[in-house]
C-alpha cells in the first residue's frame, strides 16, 4: 500500500513538474499569440484589451499560479482560437481518438500475436526466417507513407472506404468502425511490426529455458506446456514495454489523424501548435503526460500481479 502511495506521490510531482516546465517554455517563446489571433494590422488598444482579458499582461509566474489553481479543479484555461474551455475541447475530441487507438491496438495484437508465436514455435525454420525478414523491412515503412498508400489503394483504386468521412459512434458502431478502419489499420500495421519482433524474441527466450525442457520431459501435453509454461512467461517482457508502445501510438495518432482528416486530439495538437494556442497546447501536454504516467503505473501493478518474484514494495522494477 505504501508502495502505491509512493508511486502516486511521485506521479503527482511529475505532472506538476512537467506542467511547470511546459508552461514556462510556452510563455517564454517568441511570438505573440494575441497578435497571431488578431493579425498584425490590429489596433494596439484591441491587442491590450485582449491581453488583459486572457491575463497575459501579468508576470508569467502569476499566470502559472492561476492556471495551476484552475487545473487542480479541472479547468485547464480557455483556448484562444476556439474561445472555449480547453477541458471541454479535449473531452469533445477524446472519444474519437480513444476509439482509434483501441481499435488499432486490438488489430495490432490480432496481427502480431499469431505471427510472433508462429515464428517463435518454428524458430530456425524458413517460416521464422521469412517472418523475420518481412518484419525487418516492414518496420521501416513510415506510417505516413503507409497511410497515404492505403488511402490511395482503398479509396481510389478499390473504393471500399469513403475518404475523409468520419462517423461518430453515436451513429452506429458498424459505421463508426468502418469509417475508422483505414486509419486504425495504418496504425496497427506499424505497431504490429514492433510487436511481432517482441513476441517472437521473448517467446524464443522462454522456449529455450530449462524449465521448458523439464516440462517436456515430465510428459506434459503440448497445449498445457505452451500455455501454462511458455506463454505466461513470454508475456512478462512485452508487458513492461506497454508504456513505450502507448508513446509510439500517440506519435502515430498525431500523423494519422492529419492524413485521414480525423477530428481527434492529434489534429487538435497540430492546430494548437500551428496557431500557437498556448492554453490548448498546455492542456494537451498535461493530458498526454497524465495518460502516460497512468499507463505506466497500471503496467507496474499488472506486472507485479503476473510475476510473483516482483514484490509490490520493490523500489526498482526490472528494466528490460
Amino acid at each position, binding site marked *: 500500500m505504501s508502495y502505491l502511495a509512493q508511486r502516486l506521490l511521485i506521479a503527482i510531482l511529475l505532472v506538476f513538474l512537467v506542467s511547470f516546465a511546459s508552461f514556462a517554455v510556452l510563455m517564454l517563446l517568441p511570438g505573440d499569440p494575441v497578435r497571431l489571433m488578431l493579425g498584425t494590422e490590429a489596433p494596439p488598444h484591441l491587442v491590450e484589451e485582449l491581453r488583459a482579458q486572457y491575463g497575459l499582461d501579468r508576470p508569467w509566474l502569476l499566470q502559472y499560479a492561476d492556471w495551476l489553481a484552475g487545473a487542480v479543479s479541472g479547468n485547464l484555461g480557455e483556448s484562444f482560437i476556439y474561445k472555449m474551455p480547453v477541458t471541454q475541447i479535449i473531452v469533445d475530441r477524446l472519444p474519437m481518438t480513444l476509439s482509434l487507438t483501441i481499435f488499432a491496438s486490438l488489430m495490432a495484437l490480432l496481427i502480431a500475436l499469431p505471427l510472433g508465436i508462429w515464428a517463435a514455435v518454428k524458430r530456425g525454420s524458413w517460416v521464422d526466417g521469412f517472418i523475420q525478414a518481412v518484419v525487418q523491412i516492414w518496420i521501416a515503412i513510415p506510417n505516413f507513407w503507409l497511410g497515404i498508400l492505403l488511402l490511395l489503394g482503398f479509396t481510389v483504386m478499390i473504393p471500399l472506404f469513403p475518404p475523409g468521412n468520419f462517423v461518430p459512434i453515436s451513429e452506429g458502431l458498424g459505421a463508426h468502425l468502418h469509417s475508422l478502419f483505414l486509419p486504425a489499420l495504418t496504425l496497427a500495421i506499424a505497431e504490429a511490426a514492433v510487436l511481432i519482433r517482441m513476441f517472437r524474441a521473448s517467446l524464443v527466450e522462454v522456449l529455450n529455458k530449462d524449465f521448458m525442457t523439464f516440462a517436456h520431459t515430465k510428459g506434459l501435453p503440448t497445449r498445457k506446456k505452451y500455455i501454462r509454461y511458455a506463454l505466461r512467461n513470454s508475456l512478462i517482457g512485452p508487458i513492461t514495454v506497454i508504456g513505450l508502445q502507448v508513446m509510439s501510438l500517440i506519435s502515430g495518432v498525431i500523423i494519422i489523424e492529419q492524413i485521414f482528416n480525423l477530428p481527434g486530439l492529434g489534429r487538435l495538437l497540430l492546430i494548437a501548435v500551428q496557431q500557437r494556442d498556448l492554453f490548448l497546447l498546455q492542456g494537451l501536454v498535461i493530458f498526454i503526460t497524465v495518460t502516460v504516467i497512468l499507463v505506466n503505473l497500471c503496467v507496474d501493478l499488472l506486472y507485479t500481479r503476473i510475476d510473483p518474484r516482483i514484490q509490490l514494495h*520493490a523500489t526498482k522494477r526490472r528494466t528490460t
Partner: protein
Amino acid sequence: MSSNPPLIEVKGLSKSFALPRPVLWKPAQALQVLRDIHLTIQEGEIVGLVGESGSGKSTLGECIGGLQTAPPGTIKFRGTALEQLQGAGLKEYQRSVQYVFQDPVETLNPRYTVEQIIAEPIRAAGLVKQPKDIREAVEQLLQDVGLDAAYMKSRPAQLSGGQCQRVAIARALSTKPALLICDEAVSALDLSVQATILNLLGELRRKYRISQLFISHDLHVVKYLADRVAVIHQGTIVESGHTEHVFKHPEHAYTQSLISSAL
C-alpha cells in the same frame, strides 16, 4: 612469527551494503555481509578461505585488495592501515596485492594481445620503463607461468581456459606482488588443467615467497594448497587454524558439517 608486522592484518572488519529503500520515507536497510572478521596473512604464507556461496568470502578478498572500502583501521598492510597509505606507500601496496579471478576468459580484455595484457600493469607500476625491457619482462613472466613466448601476440579468444588463467597469473605477477588474492581461481577449469595451475601457484610460493589468499568453495583444493585455513559462514569466520589441524579436529559445528559432507 617474527617481530615484523604481518603482510596483511584484518582486525574487526564488518561490512554491509545498503539495500535500496523499500519506500522513500522509510529508512534504508543494510545487508550485513561481513561481521567482525579477524585474519592475518604472513609473508610467504598461503591462507585458504573456505565458504559456500553468499558467505562473504569474495567481499573479504575485495576489501583486502582495495576493490571495496573497509572501515578505517580494520585492514593493515605491513602494519599501516590502508586508508593511511599515501604516495610511495600506497603505490607499494597497490603493486603488492594482485588478483586472480575465477572466470579465466572474462578476466582478460578480449581486444588485447597477451603482451598488452601483461605489459599494462608493468607500465602502471612504473617498474620498468623502456619498451624493450618491458617486452623482456613479459617474456620472462610467460616463461614463469609455463607459456611459450610465441603466445605474446595471441588474443584471449585463441587460448584455452587453462592458458588464459596462466596469462592472468602472469599479469598478476608482473608487478612483483607480495600477495595474490585467488578468488576461485581454479574452479572454472577442467580437472586435468586444474592440477597444473595449482602446481604453478604452489611453485610461486616456493620460488618467490608470494603469499596467497586462496578463496574457494572446494575443500580438497584448499586442503591441498593452504598452510592455514579460515572457514567463513554467513559473514563470520567461524574457525581458523593450521590446515591439517582444522581438517582433523574441526571445532565449530559448521566446519564439522562442511568436512563431513566432503566426499
